[in-house]
């Protein structure tokens, strides 16, 4: 299980988001995020070789054209 301590959480949220957490909240976030990241590692066992993330260029183009059309 990834070692995420409450101190790590407090520092990460402060440094990355300028967000303050108290000790009990940091402990809770550390436990939940640690468990989730352990499970996220297990996703690799599903056989993801050759699977690309489902982000399509067609949608990117459409979204860009939609924003451009609004100007």
């Amino acid at each position, binding site marked *: 299980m990834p070692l*995420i301590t409450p101190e790590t*959480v407090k520092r*990460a*949220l402060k440094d*990355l*988001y*300028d*967000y303050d*957490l108290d000790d009990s*909240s940091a402990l*809770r*976030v550390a436990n*939940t*995020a640690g468990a*989730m*990241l352990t*499970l*996220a590692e*297990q*996703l*690799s066992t*599903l*056989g*993801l070789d050759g*699977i*690309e*993330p*489902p*982000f399509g260029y067609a*949608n990117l183009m*459409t*979204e860009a054209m*939609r924003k451009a059309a609004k100007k």
Partner: protein
Amino acid sequence: MAHGYEELLSFDVAALGEKLKAKEISPVELTEAYLDRIQRIDGKIRAYITVTADLARKSARKAEHEIVAGKWRGPFHGIPIGLKDLCYTKGIATTGGSKILGAFKPAHDSTVWTRLSRAGAILLGKLNLHEFAYGITSSNPHWGFVRNPYNLERIPGGSSGGSAAAIVARSAAATIGTDTGGSIRIPAALCGCVGMKPTWSRVSRYGVLPLAYTMDHVGPITRRVRDAALMLNVIAGHDRNDSTSSRERVSDYTEKLDTPIAGMKIGIVRELTDNLSPDVQRSFENAAAELRALGATVDEVTIPSLPMSGVINGIVTWAEATEIHRQWMATQPQDYGDDVRRLLEVGMMIPGGAYVRAQRARARVLAEAMDAIADRDALIAPGAGVTAPRIGESRRFDSEGGGIDVVAGILRFTQPFDVTGQPAIAIPTGLSSDGLPLSMQIIGRPFAEATVLQVASAYEKARGALPAPPPLQEA
């Protein structure tokens, strides 16, 4: 025009549409019946955040003029509906169930409301939900706890809790919900009504406050399967304002509702048949037997990666929701309810690599689900593993002293089909020994909503009417 209010409230959308078209009932009296019902009972249910009575009356008068003049627009002309309060309505408060957006009035409509409005639907109001749709209890700290009409001490499920509670309490004829981890199907399952999550991209998300861009679905919550099909006919289809909305052809979703299912092949999802409460297990087995009695072949299928769906759904939702809420979390975190703020804090710790891996894993689960359904017409699974929990209940214990986390025990049945984006409907299968609704999901191939609705309709007819909830004491 001699119908009493109670009789008017008893008709489903399909029946109302016929009666409105035939001028047997008036949109004005129908709308008044619903507004009266909301006034009498919503203090108990808390399904509504905003009631748009003046707008509803004005729209009803307009609908009446049009219908009398022979300009009937279709089955939703004159039908009083409610929208989950994530859906933008121009100039009308759209809170997302939050304090943060408590005074927000959008400058444009959501596409789903644009289409329903053009079809002649009448907006009764905006429906309560779990704050920002991020949870399944609908115990909203800002706008009141939504109550389950079958038992006011129980949650209605969520996040579209108000949308389902209003249907069952008869304070709307049809409603719109959204589903990211189960938020259409869970409240439909726990409240005892029909909740249809279409294929991802089938219904435009434009103007719907997002929870997770790549998981959010918009769909109908209704009393009957036919009503869901009629509503989907109105709201489905490509929208140039939503670049992800599909250009896949839109069927007439009512077309196969009366077609028998004899000869169809239906698979029970093996990974979703354990850890069921005895009532859920009995009811689900009876529902499968009913499908067999209708002539379908029902066997078991497996989707081996399905148990990882909760992780995939969780990581994607955590990451995307945290980005969506980044600015508010920076400036006013104290304005979130505790549970939602905690989820967003966890989301800040999800690394980009985990998010991309979770997105890639979706294809694995979908590939296996497509294998499972390749030789079949539909899959089935329970709608939830337990009946509606008590408000505040977090664990449920069985007679052997074992216990389950009720939130996880509910979400694990619905999250897989948000991950795969397949169409899935929740339909009631009966009541538990303590009088709470039980439900089954019917899942289809992507864009095969018509088949899902066909199976649901056949089952619904065979099942017969559900016992109504106990009468609500007036507020």
